[in-house]
């Protein structure tokens, strides 16, 4: 009642001009701001690129990607595809891309496993394991990554023996300062059976999971899906492998002259970069995992246990799904960091994108603008791929809140 009379008794209504009214409308304002921002950004980049091209022209340089097909005329020690010094710059770039992808994927893989282990150790009630994990995390996080890479590389190159004095693992694999030499598998014809069984196992497990869920919905019966999956994917192919008389020949590396020949080799640069990147990123992931698990209140565990759910199911059905929601977004940014940090490879001569197209090719051809744009575009592509995947995963598990 009283508020009503107050409204009626109010002073004259102020008339505002239409522009001010538009500007004060929340929706219109946001649209206008976005349009202005977009135009400004495009204008800025257009100006920058124009300016760069003009300046390069003044120096007598044109903007041209033709150099990519010219011979690179430098060697790359680790190439997973055919490559020699007569190959083109484009080919060198492809080798670099593959090497970056290799280090990124294997780094993300190891860092994730180590990180989750560290995170769980950090939460353990055992004083010693808890403290050890803590000390590790604090040490690793507080020393620059470049130093880790140089340290691991130095350790590998200086502390491992020369090929002549290689320490062997059962006379088939050899640890040397030139790399880790391992037997190379050379499958015999019958091996395809094992391969086929493995693929069948994967498909079977995938389908069986769906089937098991359907059966559980319909009858309540719970199948041990994980155990059955392990049997299908690991046990059956392994047994087949043994029954077929292990149809694989191993090409064992041999010492010829100053180095080993044959077999497979993992180079010290790769090992150093891989270990340093993974150990470093794992420290951050460890903290993320710890934070994620502690973010799930103990009340959740108690409520689940009180309902009669066993500990393992409580973990799988209640704690982990909630912890993942906290873990996944920062985990994605650690994956991006690892991928971008892999460009420090250049410090120890691991030939990734930065060292090939962004390093030697750039220096030899003098095409800074083109090479840098390519390198940026490549890292941007990797990063966007990773974020898209992680965003997709995150949206699948996102928490619905009021």
């Amino acid at each position, binding site marked *: 009642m009283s508020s009503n009379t107050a409204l009626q008794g109010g002073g004259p209504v102020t008339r505002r001009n239409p522009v001010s009214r538009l500007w004060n409308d929340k929706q219109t304002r946001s649209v206008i701001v976005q349009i202005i921002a977009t135009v400004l950004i495009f204008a800025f980049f257009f100006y920058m690129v124009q300016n760069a091209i003009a300046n390069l022209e003044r120096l007598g340089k044109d903007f041209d990607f033709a150099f990519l097909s010219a011979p690179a005329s430098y060697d790359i020690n680790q190439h997973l595809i055919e490559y020699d010094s007569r190959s083109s710059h484009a080919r060198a770039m492809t080798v670099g891309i593959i090497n970056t992808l290799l280090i990124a994927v294997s780094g993300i893989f190891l860092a994730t496993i180590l990180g989750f282990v560290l995170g769980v150790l950090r939460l353990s009630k055992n004083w010693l394991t808890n403290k050890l994990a803590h000390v590790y995390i604090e040490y690793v996080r507080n020393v620059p990554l470049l130093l880790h890479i140089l340290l691991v590389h130095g350790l590998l190159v200086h502390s491992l023996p020369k090929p002549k004095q290689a320490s062997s693992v059962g006379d088939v694999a050899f640890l040397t300062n030139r790399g880790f030499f391992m037997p190379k598998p050379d499958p015999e014809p019958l091996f395809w059976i094992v391969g086929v069984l493995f693929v069948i196992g994967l498909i079977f497990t995938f389908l069986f999971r769906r089937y098991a869920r359907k059966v559980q919905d*319909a009858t*309540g019966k*719970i199948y041990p899906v994980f155990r059955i999956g392990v049997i299908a994917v690991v046990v059956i192919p392994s047994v087949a492998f043994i029954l077929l008389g292990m149809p694989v020949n191993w090409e064992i590396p041999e010492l010829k002259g100053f180095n080993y020949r044959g077999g497979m080799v993992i180079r010290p640069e790769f090992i150093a970069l891989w270990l340093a990147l993974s150990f470093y990123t794992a420290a951050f992931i460890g903290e993320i995992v710890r934070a994620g698990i502690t973010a799930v209140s103990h009340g959740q565990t108690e*409520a689940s*246990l*009180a*309902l*009669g759910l066993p500990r393992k199911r409580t973990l799988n059905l209640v704690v982990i799904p909630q912890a993942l929601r906290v873990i996944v977004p920062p985990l994605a940014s650690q994956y991006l960091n690892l991928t971008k940090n892999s460009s420090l490879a250049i410090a120890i001569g691991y030939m990734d994108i930065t060292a090939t197209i962004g390093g030697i090719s750039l220096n030899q051809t003098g095409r800074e603008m083109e090479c840098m744009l390519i390198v940026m575009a490549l890292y941007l592509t990797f990063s966007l791929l990773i974020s898209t995947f992680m965003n997709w995963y995150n949206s699948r598990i996102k928490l*619905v809140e009021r």
Partner: protein
Amino acid sequence: MNEEATQERVTHTLGDIAIKIREMHKWYGQFHVLKDINLDVQNGERIVVCGPSGSGKSTMIRCINRLEEHQRGDIIVDGVELTNDLKNIEAVRREVGMVFQHFNLFPHLTVMENCTLAPIWVRKMPKAEAEETAMKYLERVKIPEQAHKYPGQLSGGQQQRVAIARSLCMNPKIMLFDEPTSALDPEMIKEVLDVMIELAREGMTMICVTHEMGFAKTVANRVIFMDEGQIIEQNEPEEFFNNPQNERTQLFLSQILQH
């Protein structure tokens, strides 16, 4: 408190022994939280536990489904003795429901999924049957229309009623309540108490830590007063409120009945 709807006292015949606690002690490190607890609860009996903050009420009822471990004495629930045997503990937890002060609903699951999780994974119930049961209990706590919302989208009172329904879906023989209304706004307390009174009427064995004395008068067969880790006094509600024997009980009652 909520007299209008619930004036008439809930009465029921009592059955065999549901919970038996003998000379039970518990320590947190050096701190002796529970001292020589003896308590028998009959099937169908409804017990209200009250006492000052820190007196060990929560700890005692949490020992009954072994969310807390006792160090000395025996606890036998529905014929099963609570030891370190995980199978026994799980068996007891299946038959004992618990409702917490802060609801502890699973925020990543819908109301329906909250209610069907344990029946599906513990009782191995088909999904349709579990959902049917869940719907029955959600109707009983008067929120069937919220079944497909997430807990974060409900009011406190609604969340606590879902928590009660979630426990009931396991078809428990005993229900434990730890201050189920003390995190709620006053206008929501009644809706939760009404559900609990309804449950008592149906003959559920209940142990309820609460300071809602109106509820105690309406529902309880027995009121237990705890202080400093001991059961100081227990009696029928009428005697307990009108004629408390121990002076600590008198002091406590005078304090909480003042407002």
